[in-house]
């Protein structure tokens, strides 16, 4: 009985409401349609995971991989905002994609240099643990 009544009551209640419903507030988090905001939330979660990895892990290679996670989170933001801008009618807007391409380029360069440092470090110290690497020259 309640199952039948509650939609009807909700409908009647909605009729009494003024136009343009107010912002849903924190309930908006449970809306499952992927909006730009959902992409921002996904990207912030990836960013947080990456920062946690950089701060907590011991293996320097895993720290580099966490940095790649952070860069990817930024890329998701760039592409999501470009798409949002395109949906608003700016059809020829590709600035975010340009930024993403440059970020990927810089990430490739960073990986090459960083891993070169790791290899030379391992030759000298036989370790890749960041808390045992505390000297620039030995």
């Amino acid at each position, binding site marked *: 009985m309640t199952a039948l009544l509650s939609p009807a009551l909700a409908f009647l209640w909605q009729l009494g409401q003024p136009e*343009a419903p107010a912002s849903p507030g924190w309930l908006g988090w449970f809306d499952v349609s992927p909006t*730009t905001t959902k992409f921002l939330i996904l990207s912030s979660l990836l960013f947080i995971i*990456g920062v*946690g990895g950089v701060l907590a892990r011991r293996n320097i290679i*895993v720290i580099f991989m966490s940095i790649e996670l952070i860069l990817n989170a930024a*890329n998701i933001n760039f592409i999501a905002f470009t798409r949002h801008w395109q949906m608003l*009618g700016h059809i020829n807007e590709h600035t975010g994609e340009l930024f993403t391409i440059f970020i990927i380029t810089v990430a490739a360069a960073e990986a*090459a240099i960083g*891993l070169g440092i790791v290899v030379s470090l391992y030759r000298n110290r036989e370790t890749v643990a960041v808390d045992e690497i505390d000297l620039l020259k030995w």
Partner: protein
Amino acid sequence: MGTATSDLSHSIAEHMVMILHGAEAWFFWLLALLALMGGLFTVLARSAVHSAIFLMMTLIAVAGLFLLMHAEFVMGVQILVYVGGVMVLFLFVIMLVNVREERLEKARLFSRQWFWAMLFAGALAFTFSYAIRLADPGQAARTRTADQPPELVGRNPQGATPVSANTQQVGAALYTQGALPFEIASILLLVAIIGSVLLARTPRQERLYDQEQEQETP
């Protein structure tokens, strides 16, 4: 603003903020879950090789998200450069310097910085949630879209063609708006190549080089 117009602009804004519809929404949730799981296991995996494989999973899922957002060219670059190039480099280096210390149960995985890591990650989570609530793009759309023509609403501006024009458009933008950064990026890559070659020399090669230098300069 009258009741009817505000109602209309509100519904238009709601519609335009939505960037995925129908089946694409399911793909978004699937790929988002894959990306988050991959990221989490990248950080938590015991062996560095497993970390690299999980990171590949995240990168491929993010490439799928780029495809959902109609950035086909960036998706291709992501797959080719990240999964094909950077990750292979990572795997090579992991196997070069593998100390196999992680195999031992006693070996410490984390650097005893749990307190600071959790503190910073928690502060970031708070800041991000606050900033996203504050600057909800829906809010911006509601204020911006009053003057937008209604025929653009909810329509994919560049879809519905068999071959996407995205690559061409990104290329045009790259050589007009981004010509100088493009050239700087090529110099950066050159410097990175030279630097990694220099860094990866063995001590014996360095000694040989020094001897040659001494012979040349009396």
